[in-house]
């Protein structure tokens, strides 16, 4: 496939890996560094690519990749799933959602279970499909479960605007859209996470542009490289972060120039500004409540707001006790260190949200997990890992024949 295959060339990849190794070696030696160099990939798409292509295994041991919270399904708290179920089970409602969200557990059940029990819940590929459904079934309320960071916010915004333009009155949005900058700031302000640099989210940046990240350099002095999602993109970005560290610099750099204009996408941002406003607070799984991190429809578009129409309970519900998604999302715990990983919690029967979406760190480990790596880590835990008391369970991959 064009623009995909050429960014997967293993020969070039090997050389970039060699180069990363050399820069890292020089840096580690000069700094006499003993603790790992921690780089966070903010976006779940990167987590997915890293495990799919085994990039974690070919990098120098001194580099530790920390998986960030950039997976919208993973950070959806239990309470919001319950709210979605509240809406989906109202009489006359057709509830539409991306497939990723179907299995996220609420406090009692998931959307998929509710669907099995009779709720009219349908998977759509695009918000435009949900709008088309509303057009075709004027006697029913069609609610779209809006999920995602700035990458998907413009598509929802444009769809709501389209509904207004066509005068469609039975289309509603349950917005769980979130924004990246407050999230990164919350991570940087977390006391015990000692990150050295970031791989920035390529597709979010394609919308918001490079400028909003400048504070990460100015205030926190961390290298930040906006990265594409093919293996060579990720490797080149890691090389760029290591170059910065080695040179003692810190800058916001753009590795993904073929898709990310420095200024972002003005049309998309305008559509978002027309339709949405920032919530004072929004609750995240694992990260708690983060100020100004969520988006809701503004007053001009209040008619389309499913939350106002159906008076959702909006309760804050704690995660199940066994679930350690919170620590995984904060990068404090590796997925395989979780007590229920691969045993109680699997992609088919998830306990926590990180096992649900293909972009979730746990699902990526489970699907593309390599027993050798896990075993090596079991016998030789990294010096920085403070969970020595945890029993590490061997992954039971595809025991049930599921992919």
């Amino acid at each position, binding site marked *: 496939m064009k623009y995909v295959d050429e960014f997967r060339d293993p020969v070039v990849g090997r*050389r970039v890996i060699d*180069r990363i190794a050399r820069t890292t070696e020089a840096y580690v030696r000069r700094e006499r560094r003993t603790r790992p160099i921690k780089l966070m990939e903010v976006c779940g798409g990167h987590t997915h690519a890293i495990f799919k292509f085994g990039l974690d295994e070919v990098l120098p041991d001194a580099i530790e990749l920390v998986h960030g919270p950039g997976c919208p399904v993973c950070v959806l708290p239990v309470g919001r799933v319950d709210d979605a179920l509240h809406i989906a089970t109202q009489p006359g409602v057709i509830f539409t959602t991306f497939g990723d969200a179907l299995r996220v557990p609420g406090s009692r059940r998931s959307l998929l279970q509710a669907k099995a029990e009779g709720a009219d819940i349908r998977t759509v590929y695009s918000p435009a499909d949900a709008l088309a459904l509303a057009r075709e079934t004027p006697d029913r309320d069609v609610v779209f479960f809006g999920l995602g960071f700035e990458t998907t916010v413009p598509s929802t915004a444009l769809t709501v605007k389209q509904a207004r333009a066509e005068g469609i009155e039975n289309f509603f949005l349950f917005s769980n859209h979130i924004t990246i900058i407050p999230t990164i700031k919350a991570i940087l302000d977390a006391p015990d996470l000692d990150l050295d640099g970031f791989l920035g989210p390529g597709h979010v940046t*394609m919308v918001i542009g490079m400028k909003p990240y400048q504070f990460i350099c100015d205030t926190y002095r961390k290298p930040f490289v906006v990265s594409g999602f093919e293996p060579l993109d990720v490797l080149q970005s890691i090389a760029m972060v290591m170059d910065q560290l080695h040179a003692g610099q810190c800058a916001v750099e753009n590795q993904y120039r073929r898709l990310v204009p420095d200024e972002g996408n003005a049309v998309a941002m305008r559509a978002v500004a027309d339709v949405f406003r920032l919530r004072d607070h929004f609750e995240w799984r694992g990260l708690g409540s983060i100020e100004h991190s969520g988006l809701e429809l503004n007053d001009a578009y209040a008619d389309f707001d499913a939350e106002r129409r159906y008076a959702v309970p909006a309760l804050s519900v704690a995660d199940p006790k066994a679930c350690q998604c919170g620590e995984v999302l904060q990068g404090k715990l590796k997925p395989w260190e979780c007590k229920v990983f691969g045993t109680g919690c699997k992609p088919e029967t998830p306990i926590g949200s990180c096992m649900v979406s293909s972009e979730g760190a746990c699902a990526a480990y489970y699907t593309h997990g390599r027993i050798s790596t896990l075993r090596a880590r079991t016998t*030789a835990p990294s010096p920085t890992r403070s969970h020595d008391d945890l029993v590490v369970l061997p992954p039971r991959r595809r025991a049930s024949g599921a992919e």
Partner: protein
Amino acid sequence: MCLGIPGQVVAIEDAAKKLGVVEVSGVRRVTNLACVVDDEHPVEGCVGDWVLVHVGFAMSRIDAEEAARTLDLLEEMGEVQAELDAMRAHLHAVRPPTDRFPGATADASEGGRTAEDGRPAGEGGGDVSGPGVGAGADGDGDASGAGNERSEGPR
């Protein structure tokens, strides 16, 4: 949901609604082009464009020149590497045969020379590996110089 796919605009469906048909690996679908058009690049001019599609919306046009430049940079990283390897071979410098390096915690015993803090390797091959490492640093400098040029905008 967040993973975008590159596709090519093959037809315009409805210019007023800014809808086009995008083909991804042989699959065609009506796609909203609103985010990739403006006065300078109207809907009618989109046929043939490569775009990144997210949930039925084209979110960015793929810049072929920048794609080529990124690939060149990647090649360049490789070329610098090849040059260094040649230089090292010429100097008969021996390096540890693996990617493991000083400071690594696990599996540091692979290969003949290892590495607690690079001392055995450093002393044993100090003279030969010295220039190698130096050249490595220079090489890195060149390549990251190119990187810097490329990314002056965002700084």
